[in-house]
């Protein structure tokens, strides 16, 4: 019984929360509003999916928020670079921005993973350093102000706006869906596809099995021939890639790259993963859990917003939910051990 609740509890809690919100909050249970919730959680959910790989491997990545910011400003700068636009046009610039954004994320993540794996430094410290460095780099690069949107009188004003508009199709675009007058937001679709991909990788691939093995018992995994270091490097690179992708989506949404974008997002991502059942001790966690955890936070925020509750109260409630999730986790595990 406990084991069953442990497995499906978070999903049930999300359904319950949604049902309560639907019954008590006017304007919550409409197609339009639920679509908005999906859009709002997409950035956090994407970070949480990457974070889940790291947490399952018994690590932690504090740098994803900063990496999101750094990847965003670098992608924005690439997208609106005059010479580049002249050379390869709007399409080429968008492609280059994607490569730069994802590359930044993968690069920083790989460094995180390499330092953790080869020098045996605690991931908390490595990624704390990376978090500070990446944020500093983003501010240094931009001079502390958002970049991307061209000034009036820019000789390539039209091309740059066109490039930003093109990326906006990704970060702020909507796909026409019957029954949804405003369409389905592209970032939410990206989030769902990524969740499917992450779930597949974690549960069906050899690499996924290795991630759980490393997090479950690193020494036993090593003696079983699992390439520990490569796995660690990969999970941080994945978390970085997710941060880079989120950075690109945010630039597309806002049509600019802000140096402070993603501030403290790492904590929301960790919260989502943990609410979704991931254990910070490693070895436990699922992609669906991360998605559901992010949705829990999103539904809660949205419902409280609609009720006109102050955002400060929302933070307090979110903290309470995190605590409940962890207590719940302990409760189900204790039951499992007795059985």
């Amino acid at each position: 019984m406990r084991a069953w609740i442990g497995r499906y509890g978070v999903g049930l809690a999300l359904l319950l929360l949604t049902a309560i919100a639907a019954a008590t909050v006017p304007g919550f249970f409409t197609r339009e509003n639920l679509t908005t919730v999906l859009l709002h959680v997409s950035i956090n959910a994407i970070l949480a999916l990457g974070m889940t790989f790291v947490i399952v491997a018994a690590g932690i990545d504090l740098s994803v928020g900063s990496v999101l910011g750094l990847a965003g400003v670098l992608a924005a700068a690439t997208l609106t670079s005059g010479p580049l636009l002249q050379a390869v046009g709007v399409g080429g610039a968008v492609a280059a921005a994607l490569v730069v954004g994802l590359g930044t994320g993968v690069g920083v993540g790989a460094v995180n993973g390499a330092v953790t794996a080869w020098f045996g430094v605690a991931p908390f410290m490595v990624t704390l350093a990376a978090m500070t460095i990446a944020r500093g780099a983003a501010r240094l690069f931009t001079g502390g102000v958002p970049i991307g949107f061209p000034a009036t009188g820019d000789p390539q004003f039209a091309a740059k706006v066109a490039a930003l508009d093109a990326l906006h199709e990704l970060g702020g675009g909507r796909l026409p869906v019957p029954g949804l007058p405003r369409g389905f937001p592209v970032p939410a679709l990206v989030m769902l596809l990524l969740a499917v991909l992450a779930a597949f990788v974690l549960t069906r691939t050899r690499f996924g099995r290795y991630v759980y093995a490393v997090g479950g018992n690193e020494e036993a995994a090593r003696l079983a021939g699992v390439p520990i270091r490569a796995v660690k490097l990969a999970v941080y690179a994945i978390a970085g890639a997710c941060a880079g992708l989120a950075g690109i989506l945010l630039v597309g949404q806002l049509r600019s790259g802000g140096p402070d974008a993603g501030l403290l997002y790492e904590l929301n991502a960790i919260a989502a993963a943990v609410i979704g059942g991931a254990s910070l001790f490693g070895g436990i966690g699922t992609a669906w859990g991360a998605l559901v955890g992010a949705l829990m936070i999103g539904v809660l925020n949205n419902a409280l917003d609609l009720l006109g509750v102050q955002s400060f109260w929302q933070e307090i409630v979110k903290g309470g939910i995190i605590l409940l999730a962890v207590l719940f986790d302990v409760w189900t595990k204790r039951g499992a051990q007795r059985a």
Partner: protein
Amino acid sequence: MSLLRLEDITKRYPGVTALDAVGLELAAGSVHGLIGENGAGKSTLLRILAGAERPDAGQVLLDGVPVTLVAPRQALDRGITVIYQELTLVPELGADANVFLGMEPARGLALDRRAMRERARETLASLGLPLADPGIPVKRLSIAQQQLVELARALVRQARVIALDEPTATLTQTEVTHLFGQIARLRDRGAGIIFVSHRLDEVRQIADEITVLRDGAAVWHGPARDVDDAGLIRLMVGRDVEYLRQPPAGPAAATPRLEVIGLTREPGFRDVSFTVRPGEIVALAGLVGAGRTEVARCLAGADRWTAGRVRLAGRDYRPRGPRDGIRRGLVYLPEDRKRDGLILGFTVGANTTLPVLRRFTRLGVVRAPAERHAAEEVVERIQLRPPDLDRVTRTLSGGNQQKVVLAKWLLADAEVLIVDEPTRGVDVGTKIELHRQIRALANHGKAVLVISSEMPEVLALADRIVVMREGRVAGELPAGEATAERIMALAVAA
């Protein structure tokens, strides 16, 4: 009136009765042996005694007075100390700090560190463990020494009832002798000792009385001098079991599969040479700390050696990691299965296929049916009961966990298997079965190196015995010439 009396202790877990109206009487100044197969209820009984678990029925009487033990603290305060097989020391803390953990002497608000050091030094010395620096972190002590630290802890608490769970499982013969000397001294000072062990000869040697548990019930109780090993085994398993020598099916091949030549890793071992041939079981015998596990870890690629060389199937072998070993067909079944051998959160199936997952993978994706098929086959081969692949490994008994470790490396189809303490903490029935499995491997042409601290096991299994002493090879004996006495003479001689 007895010092400790357990009356009708009953403990039920969902679906299973761990203890069924068990009674036990312990007189002051005596040793009471408690034996039974894994899962017979010994550990549960000890946990109840330690206040870590509450019985569903029955009572505990101390000096004839019923006591409630609902928290470990209460048991300790009443002078009951349980020393578990998995020791409960804080590895980073000093021996002295561990001895006084939870009852630190203090002057005002500050710890009285000097008193702690001195009293710990005295107490440990009285147990035959003279430490130059009692502040040495216990993780740097051997298991046997750590056990004495636990015993010292019981002494400074002035424990009157001391229960030891499998205290000799990880000890060598001399260490056991030493421990028994200390137990006898505590007994003579009026303590009541409960001694839990799988080693029946030891139980009969040290215990005055014996209680046999089977499936949660006390099936026999009586003076130790009234029974012999065969009788005890019959009582434990309810059938006749012999601790048979497993003979080889035929002669081993002439050319060695594994050649270890002058292998050295300071300070662990030096100039170690031996060979293992296909179809042969070689035992690496010796005292704990003689460097056997260190040699095994180097051969497995878990550690590096500094000098010497190794040839595997006639070719030079120098692994940079366990992966290299596995690739070359050499696998290591570690001593501590929970720490090194298994991922306890994994299912049985996932644990067995982990080293060879590549085999069931296409384009990075695991082909579940192929994986399952292979796991089913190997689990059947080792006769895991129940053969449930989806069960989480953590919930298995120690013997079954060890079978899973074996299954995993069977699946790897290695040519050389290094098996470190394969039957530690495993009941007699499973032990014999594991012996059979190991012999079957050799009969299939594998080269097997067994490390064991249990003399009967070495004698029952090995075709050749390499004895190590203080990091060096002290001698080699063919099975025909080996006796416990001769092995021991090599292991301890000055």
